[in-house]
Structures are given as structure tokens and as C-alpha cells.
């Protein structure tokens, strides 16, 4: 039982190898093995979470080398939340991918590799180890994006690879600067040593800058978000759901970990400029991401730009650096993963059932495919922040935190972001519920179009491919988005000791 943190990372890794080996014997064995590995992973994450919410974080020494020299795994409330989130979302998307996704064994092996990388990033307590897991996550994500058909997904994956590698390399350079300043890589040790070096030292400041910019690329904050729309739109539906729900989320978690565990709040207080840059990045992301989302025709691209805006909120909460905002950041990360993953899955479901992939194709969807339209509507409203959905709770805490900190420009933008989010979701909701299907109008393209968008998903519009598993997953996402909203305030209290420790 005490080896749980290590097993959390090992389970999907072993599963990935088993999928490959089993595939040599029987080509149909990929999904069951992946499902078992994912179930085991979820169990481990849940067991870990039960212990991690206690007064002290769970610490695990890897390979018998003690803390400052060896690699340490540390699980506190926030990391346990992320570990459970990764496991649950991966399990859910796996249920969807059985009928919808690419079915090859190579796909399932890469899928589990991505889960291993993400779990590793959530529990590691060593900055270089975090870089390695960041690259494992990245490599698996590039390969998964490329698992779609046609040249579009390959081009999207290459773009993602080039931009993502620059981000990860800057992260590595930042680690190098921190190592030069202190001579250690352990997060807990770094935080005391960096304080001893002094937060005004140029080495420490440069290290912070490089680490933050590197993670900004991975989170897809505005000026460095360019890989994201292409990658999400070019990937198969199950892959875009998994990546949109988890990869940027865990990168944002890494930013929380670096800012609060490694550099601490005192660094932000000493360097007001760093805090200003973080807040400015957040504001620009929220506004520009929303504006770009409104301008999109393809639904998956619109959802991708929406992520740019939503992660702006999380970065804003990190920059504000008080307990309320940080609680909001964690809740919004969980909520965004459920809602955005669910929205991508629903858009894939709608595309499989009706062939609709652009905003105009969604005209009159409520009549043609009412279940899909209903779920999409619920998730979209949850994203806008209609209570009692979880999207509301996250935004509420973040806005409250910004007000508490007296950061007025950010508070105004966060409150306004609800309207901005509504701006792009209202277009779709209006078309789905209040317009006639496009068949009887002359100006529009026919429903089942093989024009733009169909390249990403291959052969569209075959209602027989909509499986029970796909529908159940999508429905669960919508239910979770509401139920978690009700439970989130209690969760916020549960998180309190962890947040206090982060801010101490």
C-alpha cells in the first residue's frame, strides 16, 4: 500500500507495454487491456486521494535515494485531485473510443503512455523529473494527434511538435538556471535554497521567466497558443477530447506547483513585475481567445480557442496568488476538463450521427438529434457559468479572489468573461434550438457535406456508429458537470489545508 505513488505511474506504463505485446498475439486485445490498466489506475488514484487529503502530503522516496539527491514523489491535495482527474477522464474517453476512436493497438499503447506521463507530472516532487514527464506527455500527445487520417493531422502534429518542443526546451533552460543558482533539483529543497539566494537575483528571475514562458506554450496562453487549434481540430474526436481535457490542465497544474511550491508567494511579492506580466497574459488570453472563438466556423476550432480563454482565467487566478483564487483555479481546472472534454466528445458524437462539423451545420440539431443537442446545450451553459454547474463555482472563486486582492482590471475581465463565453456558445445554442434544419433553405450546403471538416473524422454521418458507450460517456460528462458544481463548495473546504500549505 505504501508504494501507491509509484504504482500510479507504473500501472499505465506496464499497461502500455502489455498492450503492445498482447497485440502480437491477438490484434483485438488492445481495448480490454487498456480498460483494465485504466481501471487499476483509477483505483490507485482514488486510494491515494483518500490519504493525501490528510494534514501532511504523502511522500515517497524512489529507489532508496533520499530527498535532496534522489527523486521524490509528493502527493498533496492538489496533486491527488489531478491524479484522480487524469484517471477518470482517461477511463471515460476510453469508453468512448471503443467504437469511435482509432482502434489499433499502437493507439491504445500511446494512449496509456500519455496517461502515464500526465500522472507522473501530477505526483513528482523534482523539477527535472517534471521535465521528463512533460516530454513523455508531449511525445505521446504528438503521436496521438497524428493518429487521425490524412495529411491534416500529420501537419497539425508536426506544428504541435515544433512549438511544444521549444516550450519544453525553455522549461529545461529554466531548470538549468535554477540549478546554477542553487545546485539542487528537489522542489522542497529548491524553495528554501532560492529564498537563501534571494528573489531579486537575476539568475532566479531569469529561471522563473523561462519556466513560466515554457509552460505558457504548453498551456496555450494567447501569443503562444498557435499549435492548439490546429492540433485539436486535426486530431480524431476521442484524442481531441483527451488532450483538451488533460494536457493543458496538467501544464497549468505544473505552473501552480512551480509558482507556489518552488518560487513561493514571496517571490511574486518581491518581483511585482512578474506578477504584472502574469496578470497581463491572463487578461489578453481571456479576451483574445474569446474573440477568436467567435470568429471560427468549425466547432472543434471554436472549442480550441475557447480553451485559450478559459486557461487565461486559471493563469489569472495563479497570478492573484491568494487562497480563494487558488481554490478557484483548481476547481476550474477540474471543471474545464470535464466540460471541455465532454463538449469535444459531444461534437464527435454529433458528427458521427449527422455529419455536422461547422457552426452552420448545427442548425435545427434539436429536431434531428435531440439527445446530442441537449447534452451540448447543457455543457455549453455549464461552460458559460450558469449555476449550479461547476463552471460557475470555479469562476466565482476566481473572481472573488481577484476582488479580495484588489486586482480590479482582472476582476472586471473575469466577470466580463462570462459574457464573452456566452458570445461564442450562444451562436451554437441559437442555431440548435431556435432554427429550422438547413435542408429546406437554398443558401446553405446540404447536411451531409464532404467539404470542410470531414477530412478530420474520415467518413461521417453514419448513425450506426453511435454506440451505447459513446452516448453513456457523453451523458456522464453532462451529469458530472452539474453534480460536481453542487459538491464543489465542500471540495473547496476539503482543499483548504493544502492551499494554506502552498501559500505559506
Amino acid at each position, binding site marked *: 500500500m505504501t508504494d501507491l505513488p509509484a504504482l500510479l505511474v507504473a500501472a499505465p506504463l506496464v499497461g502500455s507495454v502489455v498492450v503492445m505485446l498482447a497485440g502480437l498475439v491477438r490484434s483485438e486485445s488492445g481495448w480490454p487491456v487498456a480498460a483494465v490498466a485504466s481501471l487499476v489506475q483509477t483505483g490507485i488514484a482514488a486510494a491515494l486521494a483518500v490519504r493525501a487529503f490528510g494534514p501532511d502530503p504523502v511522500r515517497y522516496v524512489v529507489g532508496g535515494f533520499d530527498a535532496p539527491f534522489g527523486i521524490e514523489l509528493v502527493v498533496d491535495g492538489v496533486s491527488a485531485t489531478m491524479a484522480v482527474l487524469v484517471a477518470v477522464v482517461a477511463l471515460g474517453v476510453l469508453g468512448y473510443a471503443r467504437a469511435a476512436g482509432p482502434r489499433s493497438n499502437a493507439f491504445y499503447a500511446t494512449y496509456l503512455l500519455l496517461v502515464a506521463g500526465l500522472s507522473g507530472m501530477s505526483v513528482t516532487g523534482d523539477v527535472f523529473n517534471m521535465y*521528463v514527464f512533460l516530454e513523455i506527455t508531449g511525445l505521446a500527445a504528438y503521436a496521438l494527434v*497524428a493518429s487521425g487520417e490524412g495529411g491534416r493531422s*500529420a501537419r497539425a502534429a508536426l506544428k504541435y511538435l515544433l512549438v511544444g518542443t521549444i516550450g519544453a526546451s525553455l522549461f529545461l533552460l529554466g531548470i538549468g538556471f535554477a*540549478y546554477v543558482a542553487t545546485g539542487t533539483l528537489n522542489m522542497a529543497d529548491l524553495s528554501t535554497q532560492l529564498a537563501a539566494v534571494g528573489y531579486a537575483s537575476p539568475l532566479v528571475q531569469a529561471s522563473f521567466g523561462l519556466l513560466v514562458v515554457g509552460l505558457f506554450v504548453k498551456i496555450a496562453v494567447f501569443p503562444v497558443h498557435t499549435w492548439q487549434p490546429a492540433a485539436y481540430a486535426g486530431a480524431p474526436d476521442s484524442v481531441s477530447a483527451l488532450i483538451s481535457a488533460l494536457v493543458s490542465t496538467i501544464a497549468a497544474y505544473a505552473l501552480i506547483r512551480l509558482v507556489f511550491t518552488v518560487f513561493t508567494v514571496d517571490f511574486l511579492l518581491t518581483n511585482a513585475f512578474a506578477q504584472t506580466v502574469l496578470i497581463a497574459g491572463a487578461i489578453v488570453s481571456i479576451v483574445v481567445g474569446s474573440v477568436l472563438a467567435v470568429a471560427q466556423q468549425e466547432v472543434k476550432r471554436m472549442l480550441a480557442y475557447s480553451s485559450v480563454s478559459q486557461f487565461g482565467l486559471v493563469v489569472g487566478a495563479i497570478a492573484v496568488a491568494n487562497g480563494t483564487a487558488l481554490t478557484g483555479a483548481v476547481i476550474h481546472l477540474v471543471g474545464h476538463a470535464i466540460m471541455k472534454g465532454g463538449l469535444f466528445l459531444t461534437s464527435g458524437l454529433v458528427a458521427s450521427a449527422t455529419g455536422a462539423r461547422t457552426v452552420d451545420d448545427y442548425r435545427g440539431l434539436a429536431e434531428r438529434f435531440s439527445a446530442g443537442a441537449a447534452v451540448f446545450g447543457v455543457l455549453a451553459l455549464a461552460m458559460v457559468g450558469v449555476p449550479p454547474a461547476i463552471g460557475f463555482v470555479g469562476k466565482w472563486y476566481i473572481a472573488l479572489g481577484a476582488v479580495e486582492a484588489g486586482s480590479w482590471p482582472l476582476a472586471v475581465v473575469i466577470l466580463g468573461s462570462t459574457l464573452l463565453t456566452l458570445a461564442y456558445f450562444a451562436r451554437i445554442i441559437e442555431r440548435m434550438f431556435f432554427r429550422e434544419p438547413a435542408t429546406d433553405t437554398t443558401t446553405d450546403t446540404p447536411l451531409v457535406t464532404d467539404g470542410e471538416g470531414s477530412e478530420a473524422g474520415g467518413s461521417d454521418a453514419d448513425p450506426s456508429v453511435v454506440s451505447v458507450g459513446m452516448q453513456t460517456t457523453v451523458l456522464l460528462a453532462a451529469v458530472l458537470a452539474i453534480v460536481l458544481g453542487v459538491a464543489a463548495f465542500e471540495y473547496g473546504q476539503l482543499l483548504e489545508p493544502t492551499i494554506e500549505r502552498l501559500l505559506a
Partner: protein
Amino acid sequence: MIEFFAARVYYLVSFLLLGVGTYMMIGSPNLVKKVIGMNVFQTGIFLFFIVIAFVEGASPPLLTAPAPYVSPLPHVLILTAIVVGVSLTAVALGLIVRIYDEYGTLNEEAIQKVVGDD
């Protein structure tokens, strides 16, 4: 001024490589050259790590050798980073093969013309 730079020539070279790599990735329309640019960029970072481990007149970190020792940790880190870099290059080249099969060219601008802005 000259001594200031001469004492830091290794750092200058590694950051020069970062610049060259970035320029190749942005400036060259050829996809393979973009990947080579990425490699140059990463090599700059590898060299930076190797330079920070250097200690004037130190011996390798063996118990039989006299002190002072060179720090072995950055070298170990860079071995890991090199493995990551090789894997990334492999994935990138695999993707480039697929792109070439699909479009028949490696020129980014030519592909852009065929598919429009995507």
C-alpha cells in the same frame, strides 16, 4: 570588454546556437530544415548544461581521484535530455514522411498554397 566575453565564450556560443536554431525554425520553409533547427536549438541547451558543470582544474567524480570534483549531475540530466531529443526527432521525421506522401513536397509554403490557411 574583450576579457568579459572571453571568459564567457562557452555561454555565448550556447546562446548563439539557440538563436540560430530559432531562426532556422522560423525562416526556413523546408520542414526537414525546421526539424534540424529544432535540434540545433536543443543542442544549445545541452551545451549550456555541460558548461555549468565545468570546474577549472577539477577531476572526474571518482573516489580515487583528488578533489575538487566536476559535478556529474548536469551530465546525467543531459543524457536524459538527449534521449528525449532523439525520440522527438524520430517522431518528427516520421510525421514528415507522412506529409511528403500526402502532398508530394516538403515546402511549407507550397503546402499552405494547396490547403489554404489551416
